[in-house]
């Protein structure tokens, strides 16, 4: 069976350690694959090579068996693309932009455009320069999905979208997948890809650190928690909570990184009046640091 995406030793070397190096990656047909990494890790460079916009320094990338560099036109018949950096269309109306790109593609039904615009609540009658960042992002998603691509390559597609539209985006991805499409989506937020992905590849400093099924990454998932107690901090109970790392205690406050379930922590807090509890998702870089330190 032909893989949707296959890279072998794919490298783009911008010098001084910047770029992506020796990337060996396979994405199966029909899969939703998350490509995770902190800012500057090499996600966009990889995607731009898949799209044939930049040439690899060495190695190769294939999409449905076609070379991304040599056969880029044939590749793009099968691909929908949402760029990480949005283009500028000035005074064009949204309706004119989609009509123009649809004309370039030649395989787009107007009904499909309309359905996507309705789902994303995007007014195509307005001028591009009047669009907010979120609306520009919605338009990019319409352009990526309007021809029902076999493979959608999405570079940080939820940037600027409000939570409701994000949910609609996840629904669009699920529908596309149900219709047989493969999705390759980059992000720097772990929780985002959890909504939609089967597998996740994590890239760091230009190199692929790991590729895992989502379930395997549960151990990596973490929350930064801060608890304020009415009385003293039950330090010993907290130390015994499995998955609670980097515990710091100061006056009536305790903080740390919690991996896995919240349940053991909640049990440990029973009988100790809590005034406030705040949990937030740390950045991917923080997760990385703690994850690899913990494994060392």
């Amino acid at each position, binding site marked *: 069976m032909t893989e949707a995406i296959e890279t072998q030793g794919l490298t783009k070397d911008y010098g001084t350690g910047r770029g992506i190096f020796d990337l060996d990656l396979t994405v199966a047909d029909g899969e939703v694959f998350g490509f995770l990494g902190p800012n500057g890790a090499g996600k966009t460079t990889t995607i*731009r090579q898949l*799209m*044939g*916009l*930049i*040439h690899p320094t060495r190695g190769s990338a294939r999409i449905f068996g076609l070379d991304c560099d040599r056969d*880029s*036109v*044939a590749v*793009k*018949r099968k*691909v929908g*693309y949402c*760029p990480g*950096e*949005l*283009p*500028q*269309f*000035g*005074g*064009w*109306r949204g*309706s*004119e932009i*989609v*009509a*123009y*790109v*649809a*004309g*370039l*593609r*030649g395989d787009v039904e*107007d009904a499909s*455009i*309309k359905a996507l*615009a*309705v789902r994303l609540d*995007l*007014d*195509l*009658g*307005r*001028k591009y*320069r*009047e669009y907010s960042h979120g609306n520009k992002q919605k338009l990019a998603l319409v*352009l990526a999905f309007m021809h029902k691509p076999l493979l959608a390559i999405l570079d940080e597609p939820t940037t600027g979208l409000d939570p409701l539209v994000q949910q609609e985006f996840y629904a669009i991805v699920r529908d596309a997948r149900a219709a047989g499409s493969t999705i390759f989506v980059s992000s720097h937020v772990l929780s985002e890809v959890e909504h939609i992905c089967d597998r996740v590849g994590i890239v760091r400093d230009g190199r692929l650190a790991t590729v895992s099924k989502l379930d395997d990454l549960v151990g990596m998932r973490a929350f930064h928690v801060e608890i304020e107690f009415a009385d003293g901090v039950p330090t010993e109970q907290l130390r015994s909570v499995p998955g609670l790392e980097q515990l710091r205690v100061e006056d009536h406050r305790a903080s740390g990184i919690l991996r896995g379930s919240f349940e053991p922590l909640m049990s440990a807090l029973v009988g100790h009046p809590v005034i406030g509890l705040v949990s937030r998702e740390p950045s991917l870089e923080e997760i990385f640091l703690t994850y690899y330190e913990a494994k060392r």
Partner: protein
Amino acid sequence: MTLFRIALRQQRTGLIAMTLLGVVFGVLNALGFVQVAGTSQAERLAFARSMEILGAQLSYMLPVPEHLDTLAGYLQWRAFGSLVLILGIWGVISSTGGGRGDEERGLVEQWLSAGASRARYVTTRVLVFILVATFAIVATMVFTYVAGTSAGEPLPLAGMASIGLDLLITTLACFGIGLIVAQLVTTRRAAGFGAAGLVIALFLINGASRSSDVGPVRWLSPFYLYERSKPLTGDGALDLGAVSALTVAALVLITLAVTAFVRRDLGGTAVTRVSATSRPTTAPSRDLLLRIPVVALLRQQWLWIATWIIGLAALSAFLASIIKTVIDTLTSSATPVMRAYFERAGLSGYDSFVGAIWLSTLMLILSAYAIVQVQSWSADDAEGRFATILSAPVSRGRVILERLIALLVAVGLICAAAGAAVYLVTASQSIEVDGSKLALATVLVVLIPLAFAAIGQLLAVWRPRSALVLLSTIAVVSYFLVQFTPLFGWPEWVANLSLFSLYGMPMSGEVNWSGIAGLIGVTVVGTIGALFAVQRRDVGA
């Protein structure tokens, strides 16, 4: 100080280009005068008489000539008379870039959020422009003065200083016009074209005022006020009334623009208007033209192309309408020198003058059209539209070829309208023009913008950020080579380095087929180079 450095950096290209252009223009004209005007008093007087007749007929473009038997008079007419428009356009480009372009790119928001006040930002931009314009003009004056002195034609120092000051104030008035217009629209493109159109209209009003009474509207033209002073042919003094009015106008325009910038919303206009309501829709445009290759590119620019068609047809009709008067005067028995000159140049009969006057103007303007197109192709790359196009199943080569074909069609339409206008006007004036010759010359002139576009494509692919400057340099050098090769007696191959020279003069003799082949060759080589380069380069990098 940081804002100052940023503003200076933004003005760097303009400063270098305008200084070089001014210096080269001034020096070559100074040295050229000595070559062409002769050395004896009799030769000088004959030259002056001939050029004054020519100048009177070109009064729609250049000031009325005076004392053309002296280098000072010649420079005031020939060099500074046209340099003032170039400087004015520079003022417009700079002010619309600072007044709207940086805002469009989000830079102004960045600087203001870093703590700079609006007033400080915009006044810094104004002050830096005054500084760089002063530098460019002073350099032009100094080098021209030195060239004149070294050629044994010392120029009046006070007069040079005065005309430099006059040029500076006029440039600032045009800068002010650009800055005002930039406060009234939301894009740099609209500001640039609006302000440039306004400045050119004011230039033409002044041109019209030289030969007819246009009424008090002439006082609105900074070029009219500029020309009230003739420091190089008089006693070196400026017309204080005109210079004061020009200074006040520049100050008022700039102050109004600064105030408008401080008071208006960022990204908005000074005159708040309710935006034209568009009907909400979720459907794509039904305009089928947007979906057809090549036609889509023309459709996107239809208003722009229509403006060019109408504008050039009108200009062509105007040039054709004055040809008879110009030629009758120049070839009259009262000016044997000019008649002999034209005979040497192979100009005889009205149709050959149609070629010399109309086609040479058309070539220049069409090359400017091509340069503007190349700039928009570079912007496609920088602003992510090229990557969007390539994310569709479209080859890079197709994009290059489609652009060239669209340019060919647009230029073809413009030339057809201009040629038809010339044919109709000359026919109405009973000027015998060989229709087939005119048609062939009109078709062949299309090769000029096409060659510029092909080179421009290569430059836009190879060095997108420098393409505009490099292509403009090629155009300016081409223009200078045509102008100065006969003047300095340079070998013919030097002139043939100019794209304009390759076109030849198809209306006044045989078509220069080897030159035409050269133009086609340049187009083919440029296109193949662009096709090759675009395959190799990283898009958006």
